[in-house]
């Protein structure tokens, strides 16, 4: 082994002991590859299976031969023709968008307040605001079931919107607070000294700068609502069934490849979210 020279290396560069073609290096890379396969393969496998022409959950011989006959869009057609699925999509969007709008507005305002050094009882308030993320969802769902039905909001869209807003709020508060911690307060002071009203300074100076954080928070909140099933399971009636609720029923009762078509749609959606958040993060940093 050669002695290390004092050559400075950037932190992300691989350490010396991992360079070179040793057996250990090979085992390490092979192991990591397997873990990546474990992470991604289950999700990737779903996509081709959703084009299965047969009602099976595994690759038919025809599919393996890439016989075009073995592939079809029948499950996609089945979903689009099925009123249960289309209605659940509408429900998911209505509940998700409303909850996101509420959570983002309230959450951003609160984060602005929390960022102030003058905020009293900051830790306690932060703890309360984050509690919906911490509490196991089965407990939230049970409590919400008791409470919302006792005030007449059980089995209503409004009840679910309020419940999902509560679940999404921690994500907005956390992301916006994080963005604000990098915000230079002198900018709003400068705006004020130039004669801007506080509202004007917020709209023209602060909001554009923290916008990436606000949008990421909103996306987190929407993703939370769009994927939430336990609260829906406890609180929703037939009229409020969402996509995850419909998938839950499909998995529990009769699992049909139609579910895989919905899943493929959700995977594409998740990919879009991932790319958007990564892009926002880079912008927020730059």
């Amino acid at each position: 082994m050669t002695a290390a020279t004092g050559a400075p290396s950037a932190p992300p560069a691989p350490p010396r002991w991992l360079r070179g073609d040793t057996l250990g290096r090979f085992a390490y890379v092979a192991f990591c590859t397997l873990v990546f396969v474990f992470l991604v393969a289950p999700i990737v496998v779903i996509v081709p299976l959703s084009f299965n022409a047969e009602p099976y959950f595994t690759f038919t011989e025809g599919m393996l031969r890439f016989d075009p006959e073995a592939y079809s869009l029948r499950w996609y057609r089945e979903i689009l023709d099925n009123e249960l699925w289309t209605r659940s999509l509408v429900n998911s969007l209505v509940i998700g968008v409303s909850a996101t709008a509420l959570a983002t507005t309230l959450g951003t305002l609160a984060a602005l307040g929390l960022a102030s050094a003058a905020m009293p009882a900051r830790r306690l308030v932060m703890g309360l605001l984050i509690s919906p993320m911490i509490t196991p969802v089965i407990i939230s769902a049970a409590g919400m079931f008791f409470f919302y039905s006792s005030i007449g909001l059980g089995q209503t869209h409004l009840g679910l919107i309020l419940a999902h807003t509560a679940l999404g709020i921690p994500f907005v508060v956390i992301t916006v607070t994080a963005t604000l911690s990098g915000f230079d307060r002198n900018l709003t002071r400068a705006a004020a000294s130039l004669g801007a009203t506080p509202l004007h300074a917020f709209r023209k100076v602060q909001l554009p700068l923290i916008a990436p954080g606000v949008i990421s928070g909103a996306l987190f909140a929407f993703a939370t609502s769009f994927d939430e099933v336990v609260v829906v399971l406890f609180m929703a009636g037939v009229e409020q069934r969402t996509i995850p609720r419909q998938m839950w029923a499909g998995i529990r009762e009769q699992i049909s490849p139609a579910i895989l078509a919905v899943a493929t749609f959700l995977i594409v959606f998740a990919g879009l979210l991932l790319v958007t958040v990564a892009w926002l993060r880079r912008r927020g940093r730059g």
Partner: protein
Amino acid sequence: MIAPGRERFRALALVLPLLVFILITFIAPLATMLVRSVHDPVVADALPATLASLDGWDGEGLPDEAAYEAIARELVQAREDRTLGQVAGRVNRVQSGLRSVFTRSARSLRDVTEGPWRDALEEIDEAWADPATWHAIRATGQRFTGRHYLNAVDMQRLPDGSVARQPEERRIYLPLLWRTLVVSAVITLLCLLLGYPVAHLIAHAPERRANLLLALVLVPFWTSLLVRTTAWIVLLQTQGVVNDLLVSIGLVGDDGRLAMIYNMTGTIIAMTHVLLPFMVLPLYSVMRAIPGQYMNAAASLGARPAQAFLRVYWPQTLPGVGAGSLLVFILAIGYYITPALVGGSSGQLISNMVAYHMQTSLNWGLAAALGGILLAGVLALYLLYDRLVGIERLSLG
């Protein structure tokens, strides 16, 4: 410059709407549930006179005629008010068999207009000559009660007022709680084993490759939980992709297909998959901050790779190991969806028992008590997390 008092007022005014919103839409529901775990007025509301006449009862032998008259009238009344089912259900949980005694008695008593009530009741069912029936009524008649919590830790209150453990074969919840903790620990360990090398690889890869690899970790993080669960069902079921693959390469015979799902194995595999990103992300952010020169220095001083890793690298990653493990463990003990869908009967955890009592047995008091215990455990772990890591630094992809 704004005056400090005004600044304080402004901060409060900004936070207040959300605080009120959360208190109403979230904290109040939690409080409702916790109240339910100790407060159960159904029997007390339905049988007030009966309970009043039991005040003078010494608990030995049977109560006097007044108690029989009261219960006879109130059972009929409860039947008319449609609360009989709830009352009978609660008494039945203390003394099994009483549900049918109550419903049958209330039905037969419609035609009885005058006493002696004790004879009438004993004629309908012999249970009325058993002091245990009266003990059960008195026990469930308390508005505020600890019996749901006792139940939730496999204990019971005996008629003489003392607390004892349930007989061995009736202990359900403590073993389940223990199983939840063990399974969560196993999942945490698996996540650490799988996640540590991966986080290391990403942290020390060149920037472009690191971003790509990080995206591979984040794909499952952003993908719908139900999609991931569906994926595991498709892969692991007996006629699924993995078994087909194993059969086609001859590793297992067609009749020897492995049962990898709808049991504890399924729960562990699927939950490890779901929680792995929560381990990788904190590890990654800690490892990125470790300068590569440290390991080089160790090597140049003659340390073998394993030695350098154990003495130099590993200790520096401990904050990440702690944060990731604690987070995964906390998420695991409260997990519901995955065990419910792929756990079969052997792969259920404590959350699933809460759901069972909410939806199937309708023993909401017990569900609330189990939930209360779970909540207390999770909160304690989060306080620890807050101490060690800081709660607002929870990584969100």
